[in-house]
């Protein structure tokens, strides 16, 4: 209940200095509990409560049956990381500069870079990431690595189902991050 400006029932003669004050709010209190009126109101409120809960039955459940139904994610959802290759040449975008590791506040990225062999290139740049590991049990999914990367080699994907039985299984290697995720999470459509 909002406190309403109600000066109708106030006896202003008791407060002569407030006679023409416009910003005086007299608080309206609810009726006291107990008595016949209280019992009547309690009965009425009980019926109102029953109607409210019955309305929930008519609305129907809002549960998402999770393992069978999945919540769609937004396009900018920050899920499990992905490493990318150039589509035409198939070379890795990552040049092993370690800027993502430097930007990472949780210190969960480990990059060991190496010189590219010109005969057998792995990345498009001078160097490539020989080891690229993300410890997902430490990752806080802030997306700073994505921002730091000068070549858009790492982006945040849409996968959110990453639980595992061992902590060591949560260290994702370069091959796992480069591979397409097996279970794609549903993507939310525009306007959804």
């Amino acid at each position, binding site marked *: 209940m909002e406190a309403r400006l109600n000066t109708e029932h106030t006896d202003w003669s008791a407060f002569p200095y407030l006679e023409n004050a416009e910003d005086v709010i007299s608080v309206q209190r609810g009726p006291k509990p107990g008595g016949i009126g209280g*019992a009547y109101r309690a009965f009425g409120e009980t019926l109102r409560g029953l109607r409210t*809960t019955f309305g929930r039955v008519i609305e*129907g459940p*809002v549960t998402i049956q999770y393992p069978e139904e999945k919540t769609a994610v937004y396009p900018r959802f920050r899920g499990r990381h992905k490493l990318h290759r150039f589509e035409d040449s198939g070379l890795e975008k990552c040049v092993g500069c370690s800027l993502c590791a430097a930007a990472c506040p949780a210190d969960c990225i480990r990059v060991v870079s190496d010189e590219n062999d010109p005969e057998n290139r792995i990345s498009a740049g001078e160097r490539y990431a020989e080891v690229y590991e993300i410890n997902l049990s430490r990752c806080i999914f802030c997306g700073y690595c994505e921002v730091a990367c000068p070549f858009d080699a790492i982006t945040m994907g849409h996968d959110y189902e990453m639980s595992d039985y061992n902590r060591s299984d949560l260290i994702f290697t370069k091959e796992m991050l480069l591979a397409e995720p097996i279970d794609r999470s549903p993507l939310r459509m525009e306007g959804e």
Partner: protein
Amino acid sequence: MSIPIADVGYTEAVWVMVVKSVIIFLGVFAIVPILTVAERKLIGRFQNRYGPNRVGPVGLMQPLADIIKLAGKEMFRPQAAVPFLFAIAPAIVIFSAIVTLAILPFGNVQDGIGLYGIDVSIGILYFFAFGSLSFYGLLLAGWSSGSKYSFLGAMRSAAQLISYEVSMGLSLLGVVMMTGSLSLTAVVGGQGELWNVIPQIVGFLIFMVAGFAETNRAPFDLPEADAELVQGYMTEYGGMRFGSYLLAEYLEIFVVSGIAVTFFLGGWMGPGPGWLDPVWMVAKTLSLVTFFIWVRATLPRLRYDQLMSFGWKGLLPLATLNILVTAVIVTVS
């Protein structure tokens, strides 16, 4: 329209009575596990969710899983407990709940067989006698557990008993006066033209409110009070002893709903041939049970002093006034 009223003290062959009681017992025992899952599913619906739906088709096997789980658990007994009383308390509760089933009339005498367990001449007093006995079970459970939570729960149930059982008895007296008989079959027989819920609406409301208190259901579930007393008198129980308290609670809900249907909602009366009578009786009872669940999903638990003042200052005078007015009308007309 006159309905033949069953004779009180109507005698039948022993084997008929045995078969009848077995059928009623098994029938109601088949309903009770369904009630437990129905309650959880309905409360789910009242809260915009599904409730249990994983075990079996649409979760219907849930009670089986619950019972297997409870039966497989250790029946733990605290060191401070009194062993004999601790063991006998759940037995008293479940005994008194089952015994009350006997007087619920599921139909009139048909082909020489009364569709009820037994039509005792004291009728409704039988229900009150065993209702009070079940409180001994709760009290003994709380006292013999040697735990303060159980003891507090037991004390609360004792206080609740004396506050509500008087109003409950008085609320039915109006019907008894109108019918002129304590027998439950006679009470149903007297409702051929008009269900008692219309002339005795006050009595019906009082009986329902007191019924919530009698069965320790929300909003009067103070003896159990999961939040503050961790199930009250049954805190220290485990395994099937705990399960038997739950079973007794659902049985009591069924019995209280059955008594309410018998006294106020026309019992087995309903359109259709005579063999439909038990169906009508069970259907009416189950719809009242649904109402119990609906109320549980709606109302918060009362504070202790509110419960007491509501019982003594609200229900009791109202129930007294109700029988006073009924007595005057019955005498005058």
